[in-house]
């Protein structure tokens, strides 16, 4: 379970998150929507431990552990996975090598046995097939020369092989055509279980047609101003974000 209490955070002294309260129980998928500049990406970076983001107050725990104190690799070992909005390229680093190293690092941290090259390749190929991705994706260098859609699929491939407990999808649907979107959604849905939860950060409603959330939250000016069921997403699409803060207060 992810529990965020009154989280405040700043970038270069400028406050972006102004008291976020959020609980995502195991087994649930929550969507975070909101206007540009609301702090959606900031929230995902603070949760995954990126440098440059200063937590100024509040707390965030996952399965009882205080994650804000942990370095990024420890959060990954604890089961948190961030699917980036703009995955970076790693020239010269082979995709297979990279994912296998990550998988084994996480297994090691959890006291699980590591996968040898053969076992890893078998598992990787199986996932590639499920995601309708070509085998050669493993041979290429990480994200180098990948189209936008290929980069997102690479994120989903990593997620499938790392088996996280909490997946944070940072605007995964930006720049994707409908086919690529469906593949990403299938990848996420395939992980659904009573132990898996996800935070889907999105600007548009259409991804949520394919990954149906249990709860939808509106993040505006650094706070969650309104929460509701999946129908809230449709309401946002129809009426936009203005007035949500007020509506949230009414509902509260």
């Amino acid at each position: 379970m992810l529990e965020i209490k009154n989280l405040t955070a700043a970038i270069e002294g400028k406050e972006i998150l102004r008291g976020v309260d959020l609980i995502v129980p195991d087994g649930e998928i929550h969507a975070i929507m909101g206007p540009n500049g609301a702090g959606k990406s900031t929230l995902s970076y603070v949760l995954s431990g990126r440098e440059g983001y200063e937590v100024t107050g509040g707390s965030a725990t996952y399965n009882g552990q205080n994650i804000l104190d942990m370095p990024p690799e420890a959060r990954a070992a604890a089961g948190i996975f961030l699917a980036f909005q703009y995955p970076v390229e790693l020239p010269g680093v082979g995709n297979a090598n990279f994912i296998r190293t990550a998988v084994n690092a996480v297994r090691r941290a959890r006291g699980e046995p590591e996968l040898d090259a053969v076992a890893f390749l078998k598992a990787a190929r199986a996932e590639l097939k499920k995601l309708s991705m070509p085998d050669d994706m493993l041979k290429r260098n990480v994200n180098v020369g990948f189209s936008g859609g290929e980069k997102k699929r690479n994120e989903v491939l990593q997620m499938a092989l790392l088996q996280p407990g909490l997946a944070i999808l940072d605007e995964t649907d930006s720049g994707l055509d409908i086919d690529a979107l469906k593949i990403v959604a299938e990848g996420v849905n395939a992980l659904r279980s009573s132990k898996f939860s996800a935070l889907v950060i999105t600007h548009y409603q259409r991804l949520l047609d394919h990954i149906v959330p249990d709860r939808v939250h509106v993040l505006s000016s650094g706070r969650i101003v309104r929460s509701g069921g999946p129908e809230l997403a449709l309401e946002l699409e129809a009426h936009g974000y203005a007035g949500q803060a007020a509506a949230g207060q009414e509902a509260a």
Partner: protein
Amino acid sequence: MTALPTRKLEAWRYTDLKSLASVSFADAVPGLAPLGLPDLGVPRLIFVNGIYDAQRSTPPDFLSGFARVAEASDQPLALINAEQAHDGVTITVPDDTDAGAVLLISYAAAENPIAFHPRHRITLGMGARLTLIEIAMGQGVYWHNPVTDIALHENAKLQHYQLQNESIEAFHLATIRAKIAASAAYVSFSMVQGAKLSRAEFHPTLMGVGAVTQLNAAQLLRGQQHGDYTCVVKHDAPNCASRQVVKSVMDDHARGVFQGRIEVARAAQKTDGYQMSQALLLSDGAEMDIKPELEIFADDVKCSHGATIGALDPEQIFYLRSRGISEDQARAMLIRAFLNEALEPVSHAAARGLFEAAIDKWWAEK
């Protein structure tokens, strides 16, 4: 003895030999090669303190003894070498012969500072082939000043790999000159990790139509090391190609230098010259100086050079860490990826393994 070059000479602008000049070196005496020197399963020539160890070596065919030769150029270090040299390797591969691979190890054991100046001559006949793998290593304070003269006849191909891992207190100043005839190829890869002060100076001359040279290097330095990789590629004939990929990683207070000049003579039309040098500075106090020079007198040429100096990309490090990879391992992966491009021309599997192990060892010793 000819005087050492000073920084007043433009070619020595970034490398100061004062610390070398202040040491008093004795002449080298024969020593015992230790057991367990690298063995790649190919003919192996061992030099101890610059003197050929016939007992421990397994010579290849086409090896002749040392021959004293007068120095034609005015390069100070080559002149010093000519004055002082008393041993070296002479390999002459006949026409159309594939001489396979040869390993040349220079080992030095110096209780008191010694200097040795081997002079090597490698000649490949028309269509001949050779892979020469050199390893330089040792202990104590010494000055290793080798000069290697290479002559490649038409269609010959020499793959020349060097692992410079001299004692951390040693001085290594190597000069390699290659004359490359039409359609011949000189491919060199240098890995520089050792010595307190080192300079590897390459002078390939492309003399006939279609001659080709590739000069790659990977410099990994730390502590107070100073490493200088200097190349002057001369395009004297038309339709020749040269390519250079130089990667440098500087840690602590190390200082790296790369000087790469491409000279294209008036007659060298249709020259294809490419040079790329990239450096990573890992700490405050590290320094890199790069001087990529072009001197072009022919107009129908394709010449370009690029240079970058920077640090490891924090975005890339974060991406790896977010996938569970520790920061240390993330940096190691990125540095290995960074250096890979320079290693690309090393086609001999055992040599490749040698270099990759050297990179891993360097990082592990951090």
